[in-house]
């Protein structure tokens, strides 16, 4: 019985956000703070011959100048390949080379002009296919010597990740199929464009050899551990105090501004140093979505049943691996889509190039592979003359099906997402053309995504004397509303009013461990931890009440801050109870850890359990578009987006994520792209990198599907990522429906539309 779970509770961070009171990483200022600026490489690949910082050191206001030689540490989430500041060579345009800290930011920026760096340019590899050539320049010739996790590399090449998976016999399957459809698809680099840029303040304490950072990040403990590992100090020596996060979308996990701030703080005699990126630095020198070239070959029977699929995916990590290795592995698995295909082969390779670093981007590879999978699905449907909705229903996973590693799938609301989004878009009905040059079409696309598994979340809940419950957990609010959802779960788990629950800002010194606020995992994992800890608090309270009221605790209920008997008669309020007896019991505290590690749901074929997911997210989108055949411009009229979230703890925040994901997916798919000139991004600014505005937003109908997950808090899974993935292919499929044009390379642009129509020559 719930009071808050399932309701459209207003967000707990509302007041701060509508009044401007919320403090973000960029807003933090400390006494005595210095300001940093970074001199960056103008070359995609070069040896650093010499650096002359003498004029900068002497410049007005300048306190510290640091080069890679002064701070030769390496970090990296999967492969330790990335220096804090370039040491002997630079590997991408924009790589940090020299950091300066001064009394004002203006002084620091001006001092950069006084630094002389002599480079010896080296041949660069700026195309991911070229990076595979046997005579390609090597971005990391010593790759085989780097400390790394368990994934595979190909030594003495640019291949930093190689992975393959097979099931059944794909050659036989393809040979036996009635039809084989083959295609090559590509997804391009895009930026998260979180409105708050990367920023961090670092302070070094020479006594303890530790650092304190004020940051906005979505993964405080992972970031802390990565920095500590890079610096060679114990992880608890690095403390992260996390502010509100002005958007992440996967951007704010890698040590970007943090790395520079730490390098400067080490030499600043204890003064805090703030590094705030400009938007241009944020676009070019943080991380981008991992570009992918995806070859897909699918064998189907005449009736539409999929028999076999062979996928060959090439990913581009840019100059350092950062968070790309997981993308290349996990992301490539979901190129199979949410479909039962008995014979499979996946080969995934990722290469270094001398370009901006890529990494985790809302969906962790799914926005790229879903483009390929769902575009080809429609090509198959067209060739067979089968309705695109029907063919997906025919092949789509149902409860109890086996995943590509044998895991039995549970909580699979795919069918309902397909059916309801199709109905909402008016599938099968044709709109009257409003003008001879305006053509309408409808398209559908679906997607599947796992969550990082296994992972764990810890929480400590303190119940204060005045009835306030503080939920101490490292789950920074990145905008997805998860602090509100966690508060709702806590309120019902304990039995207190929502307004009495506080989810405070994260401080890694005080909070127990949590995995990242990423992979759409927070509601499930932290929610389950809160359920446990909350139940324990409730038990303690009822036990105390039982003593006071001289009844058995089992005859009592705690709900919304009121202790009543089982008939609902109020006996005493929680506040009165605690006020009366707080002297005897000095605190009511409970902690809990939740891990998905040993769940029976993860059981799979031997050796392949690591590919299982504790829950699966399914999302389908149906799009209606209008294309102007004179200009090639696509106007998206409507998107019906259905997501299987297990259970909506807060339908309003679920809608926010679905709508937000659609806007982002639309923007990614048809508006955004980077233009490169020999590895250098030419349009690294918001005047020429265009992001969707309210004027570009179609009618969006979010549809919540609840398949209810057995081990989830109230059945709730996750929703943050899925809605960003199906939008581009739904639009692409609608474009085909409208004018018979098939685009395989993202982004979908007016020029590509016109050249596919033969109206203008194709450009580079």
């Amino acid at each position, binding site marked *: 019985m719930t009071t808050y779970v399932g309701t459209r509770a207003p967000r707990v961070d509302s007041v701060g956000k509508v009044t401007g009171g919320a403090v973000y990483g960029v807003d933090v200022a400390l006494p005595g703070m210095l300001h940093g600026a970074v001199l960056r490489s103008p070359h995609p690949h070069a040896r650093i011959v010499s650096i002359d910082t003498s004029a900068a050191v002497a410049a007005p206001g300048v306190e510290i100048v640091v080069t890679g030689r002064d701070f030769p540490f390496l970090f990296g989430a999967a492969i330790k390949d990335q220096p804090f500041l370039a040491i002997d060579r630079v590997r991408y345009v924009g790589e940090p080379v020299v950091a300066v800290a001064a009394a004002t930011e203006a002084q620091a920026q001006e001092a950069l002009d006084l630094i002389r760096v002599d480079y010896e340019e080296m041949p660069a590899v700026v195309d991911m296919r070229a990076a595979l050539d046997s005579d390609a320049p090597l971005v990391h010739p010593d790759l085989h010597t780097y400390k790394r996790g368990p994934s595979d590399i190909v030594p003495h090449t640019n291949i930093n990740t190689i992975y393959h998976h097979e099931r059944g016999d794909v050659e036989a399957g393809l040979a036996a199929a009635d039809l084989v459809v083959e295609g090559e698809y590509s997804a391009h680099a895009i930026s998260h464009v979180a409105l708050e840029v990367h920023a961090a303040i670092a302070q070094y304490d020479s006594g303890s050899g530790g650092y304190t950072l004020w940051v906005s990040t979505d993964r405080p403990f992972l970031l802390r551990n990565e920095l500590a590992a890079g610096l060679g100090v114990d992880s608890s020596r690095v403390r992260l105090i996390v502010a509100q996060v002005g958007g992440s979308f996967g951007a704010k996990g890698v040590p970007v501004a943090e790395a520079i701030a730490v390098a400067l703080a080490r030499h600043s005699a204890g003064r805090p140093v703030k590094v705030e990126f400009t938007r241009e630095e944020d676009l070019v020198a943080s991380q981008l979505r991992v570009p992918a070239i995806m070859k897909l070959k699918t064998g189907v029977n005449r009736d539409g049943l999929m028999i076999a699929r062979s996928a060959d995916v090439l990913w581009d990590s840019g100059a350092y691996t950062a968070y790309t290795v997981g993308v290349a592995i996990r992301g490539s698995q979901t190129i199979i889509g949410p479909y039962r295909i008995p014979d499979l082969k996946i080969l995934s390779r990722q290469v270094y190039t001398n370009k901006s670093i890529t990494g985790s981007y809302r969906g962790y590879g799914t926005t790229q592979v879903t483009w390929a999978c769902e575009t080809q699905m429609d090509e198959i449907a067209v060739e067979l003359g089968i309705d695109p909705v029907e063919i997906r229903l025919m092949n789509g996973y149902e409860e109890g099906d086996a995943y590509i590693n044998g895991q039995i799938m549970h909580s699979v609301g795919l069918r309902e997402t397909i059916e309801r989004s199709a109905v909402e878009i008016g599938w099968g009905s044709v709109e009257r053309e409003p003008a001879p040059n305006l053509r309408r079409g409808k398209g559908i696309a679906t997607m599947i995504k796992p969550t990082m598994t296994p992972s764990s979340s810890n929480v400590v809940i303190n119940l204060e004397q005045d009835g306030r419950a503080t939920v101490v957990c490292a789950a920074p609010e990145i905008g997805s509303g998860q602090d509100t959802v966690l508060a709702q779960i806590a309120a019902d788990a304990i039995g207190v009013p929502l307004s009495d629950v506080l989810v405070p800002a994260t401080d890694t010194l005080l909070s127990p461990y949590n995995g990242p606020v990423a992979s759409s995992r927070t509601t499930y994992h932290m929610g389950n931890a809160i359920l446990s800890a909350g139940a324990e608090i409730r038990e303690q309270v009822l036990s105390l009440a039982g003593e006071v009221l001289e009844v058995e605790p089992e005859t009592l209920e705690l709900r919304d801050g009121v202790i009543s008997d089982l008939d609902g008669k109020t006996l005493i309020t929680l506040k009165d109870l605690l006020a009366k007896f707080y002297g005897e019991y000095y605190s009511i505290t409970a902690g809990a850890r939740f891990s998905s590690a040993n769940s029976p749901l993860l059981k799979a074929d031997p050796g392949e359990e690591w590919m299982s997911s504790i829950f699966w997210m399914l999302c389908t989108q149906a799009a209606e578009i209008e294309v102007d055949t004179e200009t090639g411009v696509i106007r998206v009229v409507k998107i019906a987006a259905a997501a299987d979230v297990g259970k909506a703890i807060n339908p309003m925040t679920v809608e926010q994520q679905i709508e*937000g994901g659609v806007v982002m997916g639309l923007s990614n798919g048809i508006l955004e792209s980077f233009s490169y000139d020999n590895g250098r991004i030419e349009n690294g600014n918001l005047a020429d990198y265009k992001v969707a505005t309210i004027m570009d937003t179609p009618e969006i109908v979010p549809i919540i599907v609840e398949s209810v997950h057995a081990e989830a808090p109230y059945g709730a899974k996750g929703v943050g990522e899925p809605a960003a993935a199906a939008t581009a292919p739904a639009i692409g499929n609608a474009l085909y429906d409208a004018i018979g044009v098939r685009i395989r390379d993202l982004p979908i642009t007016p020029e590509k539309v016109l050249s596919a129509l033969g109206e203008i020559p194709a450009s580079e």
Partner: protein
Amino acid sequence: MTIDLSITINDVPRLITADLRSTLLEVLREQMLLTGTKEGCGVGECGTCVVLADGKPVTSCLVLAGDADGATIETVEGLAADGELTQVQKAFVKTGAFQCGFCTPAMVLATTAIFRENDQPDIEDVKKALGGILCRCGAYPKILEAVIEVKGEGT
């Protein structure tokens, strides 16, 4: 070099000695410590730096300090001055018209300016008026719901 400015900020006349080469955004955030107004790009392309200058939403990152002399500026902090959220702010809360909140001060101010002109604005005109403020979280649909909520309540 410094410049002396007379600017009315949130109804309070101020005498400010500012760095001559700073922008209005810098003066507000760093000298007045009004950090509700944000920077998103610094070149007028994202709208997160919106303040109301003589009632009109403008990109404060493009206004030189000297140019702001004599102006009447409203920032988001001036709206709920006595602690009570305004009608627009309440509508944003009710409909969930924000996610990470970074663009929210700008969206709230610009929406406030719209309603000061016209208490029943046309939705298409509202979209044009808000078209210069980016919301990467994609809260646009719920921002429009908030506008409809304010319209529904009448005056």
